[in-house]
């Protein structure tokens, strides 16, 4: 809160100046900077950051060890993509990097967003900030952009660190193809965490108590990570076709189950990362034998990989934007005088 007041002082100094566009941007950038500073100094963030860093570094380390000590499998079409394999390989002791991010990324997003609006509101800070000559949406935008910057910097540096360490270890740099794929993987990870961030910001706008918004957000996360797979299993049992059913029926069933699973954001994320990090994957759904006839196992060009998982990526990006739009809408219509 001290920092917030400090910010207000700065803003007050700006008051005599005419509020042109540059000043608006300046004010916004100050809001964002304060937001980032708040996050970095907050204990909840530091603790979560430590958990994520430790687990990710541990999984990357085990992956590097596993890759270093095992001879490549002959005829492995992914053999040329060493740097991609680091993020997907595991020697069994730890889940691989992309699984960890899929699991802990939501927690990070929730942690950065669940008290974004309601804590300020409860602390009577919201009214004071918005009494400054800035646009009202700057507050929410700054909350979002600040948290997004923190997430982006965190994952970018984590992946860059891994690439650097791997380059040191093996003695050759990643190829251009791998760099492209890793760049897109970073973007996708940021979008995925941003989705949970936006969702928790939405709850922080809707619910007056921080505890409520935090619990609701974590409940949704728990639902999708723990209960949703159980529900899907129950549904699968119910609609499972006879083992002697025709191929078409089995295909239809598998498509249906996949569609159900893709309602979970983590499934969308893992589909996207699998396509980006394993270039030899050619399809995410079940395939007919006739589709595989004559197929040569070879890595797909990046463009084709994106096309295969494009609908999943679109869903993730669109959900993120829609969540932001919803929180924006509710925030703008919120009664802030109390």
């Amino acid at each position, binding site marked *: 809160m001290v920092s917030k007041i400090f910010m207000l002082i700065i803003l007050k100094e700006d008051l005599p100046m005419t509020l042109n566009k540059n000043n608006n941007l300046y004010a916004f950038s100050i809001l964002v900077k304060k937001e980032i500073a708040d996050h970095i100094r907050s204990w909840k963030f530091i603790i979560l950051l430590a958990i994520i860093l430790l687990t990710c570094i541990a999984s990357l380390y085990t992956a590097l060890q596993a890759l270093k000590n095992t001879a490549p499998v002959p005829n492995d079409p992914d053999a040329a993509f060493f740097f991609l394999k680091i993020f997907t390989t595991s020697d069994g002791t730890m889940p691989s990097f992309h699984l960890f991010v899929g699991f802990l990324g939501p927690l990070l997003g929730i942690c950065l967003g669940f008290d974004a609006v309601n804590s300020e509101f409860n602390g009577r800070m919201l009214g004071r900030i918005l009494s400054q000559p800035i646009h009202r949406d700057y507050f929410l935008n700054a909350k979002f952009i600040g948290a997004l910057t923190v997430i982006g910097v965190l994952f970018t540096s984590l992946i860059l660190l891994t690439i650097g360490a791997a380059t040191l270890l093996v003695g050759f740099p990643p190829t251009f193809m791998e760099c492209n794929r890793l760049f897109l993987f970073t973007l996708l990870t940021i979008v995925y965490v941003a989705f949970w961030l936006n969702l928790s910001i939405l709850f922080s706008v809707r619910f007056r108590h921080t505890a409520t918004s935090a619990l609701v957000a974590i409940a949704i996360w728990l639902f999708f990570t723990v209960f949703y797979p159980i529900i899907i299993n129950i549904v699968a049992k119910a609609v499972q076709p006879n083992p002697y059913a025709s191929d078409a029926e089995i295909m239809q069933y598998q498509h249906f189950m996949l569609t159900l699973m893709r309602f979970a954001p983590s499934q969308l994320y893992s589909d996207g990362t699998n396509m980006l990090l394993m270039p030899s994957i*050619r399809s995410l759904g079940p395939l007919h034998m*006739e589709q595989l006839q004559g*197929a040569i196992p*070879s890595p797909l060009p990046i463009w084709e990989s994106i*096309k295969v998982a494009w609908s999943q990526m*679109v869903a993730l990006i*669109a959900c993120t*934007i829609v969540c932001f*739009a919803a929180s924006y*809408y509710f925030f703008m219509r919120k009664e802030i005088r109390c």
Partner: protein
Amino acid sequence: MLKSRIIYLLGMILASNVAFAQNLQLYTTYPKISVSPGEVIDYNVELINNSSVTRNGRISLQNLPKNWDYEMKSGNYSAEEISVLPKERKSLNLKVIVPSKIEKGQYRFQLVAQGESSLPLTVDVTTDGKSSSEFNSPQTNMEGSAKSTFTFNASLLNRSSEAQVYRLGANLQPGWGATFKVDGKQVSSVNIEGNQRKDILVEILPPESVKKGKYTIPLFAQSPLNQSDLSLEVVITGSYGLQLTTPEGLLSTTATANRDKSIQFLVKNTGSSDLSQINLNASAPSQWEAHFEPSRISTLKAGESQTVTAIIKPAKKAIAGDYQITLDAKNNETSDSVKFRVTVETSLLWGWVGILIIAIAVALVYFLIRKYGRR
């Protein structure tokens, strides 16, 4: 009778030192001849009895040079004494074997009917051995395809008395090859002792593009003194070769699922015979469509090529990535097949739909900002 009289008279004139009054007379047609060393001279000698009584003649060869040898036969017998009835004659066969190691020059010796007459004979030895080598082969004709190697067994005989070095060569048309092998080693010249024979293996290699037909390969063995030739005959039956490729040699392409893709192919006749009725065929995974246009080439001349178009349409449900299809060209004689890699790309339609969805979401945010953000 008249004939015998004429011979008799001629004999008297040529054999000038034959005494007219002699009762037994020796006669031969060629008392002076030229031979090469190592040759065998075959004399036909007549023994004529001029008297009215039967006479015995002891026939011998006198003053024969050292190392020379002879053999005398009358009828089937080797005879030394011959008896001739009055006014009759008897034929003798005299073989004089000229030694191979001999000086050049004139050699004289006499055939003598003891006490009766003497026939001087002169042999002129042209000892340097010119035209005294022989290059031949028992089988000078061979047949095979353009891709086969023709191996001939030849032998070279040095008839002269001295060792000679023969250079072996062939007057070949461009593209042909000839190698000579002696004792399993490839050689370009061969050293042969006097009066010795060496077996030479001649390998003829026709060019791959050689046309069907009969070819004569002139070979020679040349020594400083002489040259002998050998003509070999090679009959090419023609080869059949077919190649299916693309003009650039690139055997991969990209194609979009459920959309036609045409690729230029080249059918080449790499053989030396014309090919007819070449069928072009494409075997692609099921649900794919692949065919050639035209699907049949009626004739393709040797060495020529023709462009055909392959039309490939990946299946509607083909997944992105690489597929392999096999294309082949075939006729009765030969065939070629090529593995072609098709990288399937998926349609962009759903990509645009996705972009549209994102655009709608962004537009929603923009709308909200316009409506509420800047009041």
